[in-house]
């Protein structure tokens, strides 16, 4: 035998082939040889010479299939309507498996048919004969024509009935799996139809199903809304929704579920919108969270359903926020202010997460309202006090003197303060004030724990970025480095010089740029006891770091003096200037006021403040022009601290920081504008505004502010107005 096309007896070949096809259709097992041989049969039939038999083959196969399917139809219809669906299902399952195998077998014929089809597409003439389809398609088509078309109406009615039964708690006669298979068959029949593959499924099942479901929902919802209260209604309706969802997803085609859901929502929710909204406000006020949750679930699928709920929620936050602000106006205790705001915030945040499923709409409402509350301006024309109060609050938490809370609790409170920090508009004011407080804490060693401080700075970095906390990090590094330097200095120098000075001396080296401290303008007379030490240190430092300049900040330094001239020994912590005044009395008991002034070379006002502080605490006594050491000084405590009297100048610091912030802001804004314009070359005014606001994270520039900056830049010659309308700017390189 060879593969050459040759004359073939059709009848013979067809007899063998027919047997094979029959056994395939009845899903019998076929011996291997027979299976392989049938491939040969088909090949030879198609390629036979002189007359190709493929058309005949096709027709005979078609006939065979037709007879088979008609028999199946008779079988399905035999036992009446009860078993109609079941029989259909079993027959279909067998048939679909068989035609897959058949399609494989007829591969060669299919190839020829496909070529014919392509030829037909190219040619212009129309043939009378119906086109030949590939065998798989043919079989599906035959099934559709012979079985589905006559039976479809009765079947769809049965299917709809079956599907409806569970809704009324009636027992179902046909298991829903069978129904699922049947529905799938409707879809699979049309899978070769490119235009509308779901045609049968749609027309004969889905539309009717949706209509029926709609009626059911309408009846149920009207009934329930009359009998039950809103909360009970919502609960029951949600249960029904869940059931329908499970059933639809399991048994129906995937495209149906969405349509079912929208019908459901329309009948159950939209038609009863007033009913549902009636109690929404009460629910929010009385904090009935479960009901509110149900309400949300039902309304979230409906367009604009949540608008009303959102409105009520916003009102609620606003009212409670105003309450907090009022109480603060009365008390002016900023700690309570923050704790109250925090409590409010946590409460509403939990409502948004739990009740509203973290819906974007509601968390947005929460954020906007809280922004308003936090940035509330207690006085007109002044920036809001929030950054100042927040930094004071943090300062208190971070100081050693804050007793009563464990470290973890303090960390927790600081973390919470970050949530409020995110709402503050003037973040740069906060940065300045916080930096000033931090400087004081670090210099005077008042912080409770470095770990907590660093944690706080890390949190700030996470919310605002690296630049914001850059300087703060520098400050910490400075302190750490200074500690190391001090130990080195102690070891090296004091050993080397064998200086029996009864002083202990430590220095903090601070970088000029990172610390918000001003350099002293006048030189100061250092008392002799400290002179050697400070000179030694300068030498030591210059050896270590060549080329760096050191400037002493005496107004920040402090020291401890042991008073030995009194019956009881006292240890007094003093600021530098106060200490130098007292040290002058080491050799003598009385000095003239003017003398002291001359020696110290301080400015007058300053000097007065220092001396008065000493006089007030009775260490010195003023007698006309003479200043005398008070030998009758006594105090209950042995350890005293007199620095506080001189260091209370925070309000000025704050005013200063606010002013400097304003200047910074101008510069920052101008730099941002130039940067944007350089990139974009030309930009419309409104778009420029949008860009600027998105790029300035540490404060919220007002429109007037931006406009003035733009004007300044135009004057300076960086931008120019183009003649286009609307207002457009272009960058001048």
């Amino acid at each position, binding site marked *: 035998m060879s593969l050459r096309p040759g004359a073939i007896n059709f009848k013979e070949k067809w007899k063998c082939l027919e047997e094979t096809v029959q056994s395939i259709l009845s899903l019998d097992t076929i011996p291997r040889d027979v299976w392989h041989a049938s491939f040969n049969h088909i090949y030879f039939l198609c390629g036979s010479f002189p007359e190709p038999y493929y058309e005949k083959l096709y027709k005979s196969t078609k006939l065979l299939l037709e007879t088979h399917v008609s028999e199946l139809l008779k079988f399905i219809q035999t036992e009446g309507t009860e078993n109609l669906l079941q029989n259909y299902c079993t027959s279909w399952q067998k048939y679909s498996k068989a035609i897959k195998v058949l399609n494989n077998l007829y*591969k*060669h014929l299919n190839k020829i048919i496909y070529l014919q089809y392509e030829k037909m597409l190219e040619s212009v003439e129309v043939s009378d004969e119906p086109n030949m389809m590939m065998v798989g398609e043919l079989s599906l088509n035959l099934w559709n024509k012979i079985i589905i078309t006559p039976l479809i109406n009765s079947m769809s009615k049965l299917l709809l009935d079956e599907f409806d039964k569970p809704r009324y708690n009636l027992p179902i006669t046909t298991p829903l799996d069978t129904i699922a298979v049947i529905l799938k068959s409707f879809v699979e029949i049309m899978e070769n139809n490119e235009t509308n593959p779901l045609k049968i499924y749609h027309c004969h099942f889905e539309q009717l199903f949706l209509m029926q479901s709609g009626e059911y929902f309408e009846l149920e919802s009207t009934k329930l809304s009359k009998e039950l209260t809103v909360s009970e209604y919502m609960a029951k309706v949600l249960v029904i929704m869940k059931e329908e969802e499970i059933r639809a997803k399991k048994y129906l085609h995937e495209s149906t579920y969405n349509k079912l859901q929208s019908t459901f929502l329309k009948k159950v929710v939209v038609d009863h919108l007033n009913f549902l909204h009636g109690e929404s406000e009460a629910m929010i006020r009385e904090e009935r969270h479960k009901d509110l949750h149900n309400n949300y679930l039902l309304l979230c699928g409906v367009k604009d359903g949540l608008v009303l709920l959102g409105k009520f929620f916003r009102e609620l936050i606003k009212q409670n926020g105003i309450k907090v602000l009022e109480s603060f106006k009365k008390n002016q205790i900023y700690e309570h202010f923050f704790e109250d705001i925090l409590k409010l915030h946590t409460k509403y945040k939990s409502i948004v997460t739990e009740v509203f499923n973290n819906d974007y709409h509601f968390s947005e409402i929460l954020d906007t309202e809280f922004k308003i509350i936090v940035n509330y301006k207690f006085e007109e024309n002044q920036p809001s006090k929030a950054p100042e109060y927040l930094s004071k609050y943090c300062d208190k938490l971070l100081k050693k003197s804050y007793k009563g809370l464990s470290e973890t609790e303090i960390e927790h409170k600081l973390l919470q303060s970050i949530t409020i920090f995110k709402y503050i508009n003037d973040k740069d004011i906060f940065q300045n004030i916080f930096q000033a407080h931090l400087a004081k804490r670090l210099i005077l060693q008042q912080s409770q724990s470095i770990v907590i401080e660093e944690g706080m700075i890390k949190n700030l970095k996470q919310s605002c970025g690296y630049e914001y906390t850059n300087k703060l990090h520098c400050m910490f590094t400075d302190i750490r480095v200074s500690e190391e330097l001090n130990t080195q200095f102690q070891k090296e120098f004091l050993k080397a010089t064998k200086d029996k000075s009864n002083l202990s001396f430590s220095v903090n080296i601070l970088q000029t740029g990172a610390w918000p401290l001003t350099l002293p303008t006048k030189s100061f007379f250092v008392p002799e006891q400290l002179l050697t030490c400070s000179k030694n240190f300068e030498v030591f430092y210059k050896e270590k770091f060549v080329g760096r300049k050191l400037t002493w900040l005496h107004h920040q330094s402090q020291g401890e003096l042991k008073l030995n001239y009194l019956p009881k020994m006292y240890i007094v912590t003093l600021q530098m200037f106060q200490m130098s005044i007292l040290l002058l009395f080491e050799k003598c008991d009385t000095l003239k006021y003017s003398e002291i002034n001359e020696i110290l070379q301080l400015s007058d006002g300053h000097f007065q403040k220092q001396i008065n502080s000493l006089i007030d605490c009775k260490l010195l006594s003023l007698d006309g022009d003479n200043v005398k050491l008070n030998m009758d000084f006594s105090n209950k405590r042995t350890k005293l601290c007199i620095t506080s009297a001189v260091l209370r100048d925070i309000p000025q610091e704050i005013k200063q920081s606010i002013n400097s912030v304003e200047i910074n802001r101008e510069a920052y804004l101008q730099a941002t504008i130039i940067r944007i314009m350089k990139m974009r070359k030309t930009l419309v005014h409104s778009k420029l505004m949008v860009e600027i606001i998105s790029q300035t994270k540490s404060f919220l520039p007002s429109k007037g502010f931006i406009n003035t900056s733009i004007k300044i830049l135009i004057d300076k010659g960086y931008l120019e107005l183009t003649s286009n309308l609307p207002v457009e700017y272009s960058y001048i390189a």
Partner: protein
Amino acid sequence: MIVDEASGKEDGSGEYGNCNGPLSPYVKLISSDGHEFIVKREHALMSGTIRAMLSGPGQFAENETNQIHFREIPSHVLLNVCKYFAYKAYYSNCANEIPEFSIKPQIALELLMAANFLDC
């Protein structure tokens, strides 16, 4: 030798799989004159006809050999078919220049008919 080229080594372990069972790595193609060609299953499946034949009704039993007896294809043709399977598999994902698959003119016609039948 040609069989070795077509089948190749499995895992470099020196052990070959067999042709039995539905997941066997090799299949056996038998020509009209009884010559048995054992090739890798994935190579043989390049032919549409062989693929349809092997996915026939029912699975191959575990100890049943996956073999197809081609009563119309002589061995000198089937040999070239197997060579072609290996050639195609090797150069399918190759970006380099692909050498020509040489066909002796004497067998060209028969090879053409076999290719038509096997759809590859």
